[in-house]
């Protein structure tokens, strides 16, 4: 099947008696945005880390992550093809905005000219035309968020995780970025899993939502 599947995922802090949340199984279909709700501190970000392959050594986890029918649980993060959009943009500070995107761009796009064009197109579609040489530290919050999404998408992920991606944005900006993100994500036809504590995020996503 095509989609992202979790099978009996359970995570404990090393040495802790009980898991962070009851064992979790779910399926996200391609083109669907599934929202997981829960108060802060319950382990939503830890779940995202587990799915993406970024879990710290201080956790014990069990369960399976299956992507498009393939078990990727044993793979390192870079070999899973699972993109993440973080709460902060986490742009690389030593690279220009354009090179941040070029760093991410799928290897299958070959040729210096083609790669440059792909990055310029992505910048343009994010309202960042002419920003290639800009220092990421000089971007506004909204520009940074849009650049981060473009960077994530250029890697051609087969699934996307959104880790409270709008929590740190101003209310008026949040509306704009949210629709920008969902618009770009939907046309990709990949499974998207979002964790948030904000019910309005789930509402805007419009898909299924479940509580952790």
């Amino acid at each position: 099947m095509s989609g992202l599947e979790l099978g009996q995922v359970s995570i404990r802090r090393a040495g802790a008696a009980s898991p962070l949340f009851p064992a979790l199984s779910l399926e996200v279909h391609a083109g669907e945005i599934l929202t997981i709700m829960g108060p802060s501190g319950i382990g939503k970000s830890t779940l995202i880390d587990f799915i993406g392959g970024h879990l710290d050594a201080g956790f014990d986890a069990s369960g399976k992550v299956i992507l498009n029918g393939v078990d990727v649980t044993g793979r390192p993060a870079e070999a899973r093809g699972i993109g993440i959009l973080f709460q902060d943009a986490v742009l690389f500070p030593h690279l220009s905005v354009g090179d941040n995107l070029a760093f991410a761009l799928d290897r299958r796009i070959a040729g210096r000219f083609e790669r440059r064009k792909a990055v310029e197109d992505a910048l343009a579609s994010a309202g960042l035309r002419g920003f290639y040489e800009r220092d990421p530290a000089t971007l506004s919050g909204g520009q940074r968020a849009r650049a981060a999404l473009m960077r994530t998408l250029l890697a051609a992920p087969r699934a996307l995780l959104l880790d409270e991606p709008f929590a740190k944005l101003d209310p008026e900006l949040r509306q704009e970025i949210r629709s920008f993100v969902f618009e770009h994500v939907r046309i990709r036809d990949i499974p998207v899993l979002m964790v948030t504590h904000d019910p309005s995020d789930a509402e805007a996503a419009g898909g299924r939502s479940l509580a952790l």
Partner: protein
Amino acid sequence: MTRAGGRWLRGLVLAVVMLGLVLPIAAGLWETLAAAFGHLPAIGETGASLDPWRRLLDLPGVVTSVKLTLWTGLASTAIALLLALGAAGWAHRRFGPRALGRVLTPFLAVPHAALAIGLAFVIMPSGWIARAISPWATGWDLPPDLAIVNDPAGLALILGLVIKELPFFLLVTLAALAQIPVGSQMRAGRAIGYPPAQVWAFVIVPQVYAQIRLPVYVVLSFALSVVDMAIILGPSNPPVLAVAMTRWFLAPDSGLILPASAAAMTQALIVVGAIALWRGAEALIAVAGRAILRQGRRRHAWAGAARASAGIAATLFVLGLLSLAALTVWSIAWRWSFPDMWPETLSLHSWARPGAGWGLAVLNTAVIGFATTALALVLAVAWLEGEDRGGLARARWAEALVYLPLIVPQVAFLFGLQVVFLRLGVSGGIGAVIWAQALFVFPYVMIALSDPWRALDRRLLRAAAALGAGPARRLFAVKLPILLRPLLTAAAIGFAVSVAQYLPTLFMGAGRVPTLTTEAVTLSSGSDRRVTGTYATLQSALPFLAYAAAFFIPAWVFRHRRALSGEPG
């Protein structure tokens, strides 16, 4: 998979550290120990006997040497530490840690020998201070016959050590302060009626000290074992033990090697004993401090103590700067009669002839410095990357391994290491010097790099991994470029440590690898201050250039990257 790769990398690094670093030190200690008990087949001595110890005790002045070692080592460390803690209490609210760090870091670059030579130029009877107050205040028309430098009580040596170690203690104190919520604790303490200096002494200092204890032991061990500075400033007859035993080791009479080895073991015991004594004093001060604290007395006298230490510290900085200036002025002086403050005629005579010796010394120093720094940096990066990939925290024993070469006194194992190197047939060349220096360069590079490496925002690495970048790409395209500044700073520190090395160069080079440091120390006992000044100026200029490069290169590379340019943005 990655995790296994990390374990593999860490295992490899550990093997290199064990074979290249721990084994030589252990073998060196073992050979020295064997020689101390009369076993050294290389000079035809075999068997275990107490004879070397008997002969050591019969050597003239040995008891005085031990006393002088303890006195100068303990006094200089205690004075420098107290001044640093007091001065930091005064300074930390007035200047940002960044500004202080920038002022202090160049002082770390100055090699001990250069500072010692410059200080001698300033305080000796014909030095700048005597000139400044003569003849109007003293009536001296000729330099007086006073033993200010090389005084029998070791005061000049203590002064030199304090000037050199004070900036180091201030820097580690500042680094420790960054881990403590000083502002809120200060507010809490003042709200219950304590003046700031007292809150500093009773609340902040104990927390700082707990963090800087290891560097304090390193300095103590160093001050007890220092050779170059003690030759230049210390008592001459008898000298401190480390100097005495270096003379015995290098004496033409090979019969002195066995008692010298016994002295090297004594030196190791002195360091262990002094650290134990220091720990005892720590405990006593903690008990006394708590007893005083329970009395709840609010006293304003502490403010005076903090101000006084800041004042003394500032004076010592000025003295240090004067010392460096004295080196350069002497190197270009031609006629300079007492009591003039400035030479009558200047000349570039000693600068104009690199072929006379300093050209080769600069070359050797630079080559050895670059090689040891490169080795140390690669090893440190491999170590830290191995920890990252394996998801491993630094074990306590690994931390101890890093500090080992800094705590064990150099003199205690260098002779034995020379014996080992001779047996392996690698002694007397530049390679042996590089290896021996790397033992001391690696720990400093590792210590300097560890904190910035771990402070790197891990989310950047997750973001890179989520974009499909594997471990190698994460290392070379994300970590190393972002960490360019700390990498270059660690390299500059390593280079400065290498340039300053005296004993390893002397022993392992078998006197055939002249560097700026070995030449400057040898020349310092001679009479030509112009040549000495030239060598010592070069000796402090090289590390200073390295620090300057570590500052300006990242600033230029990241001139369009506000988050990394080092400017507040």
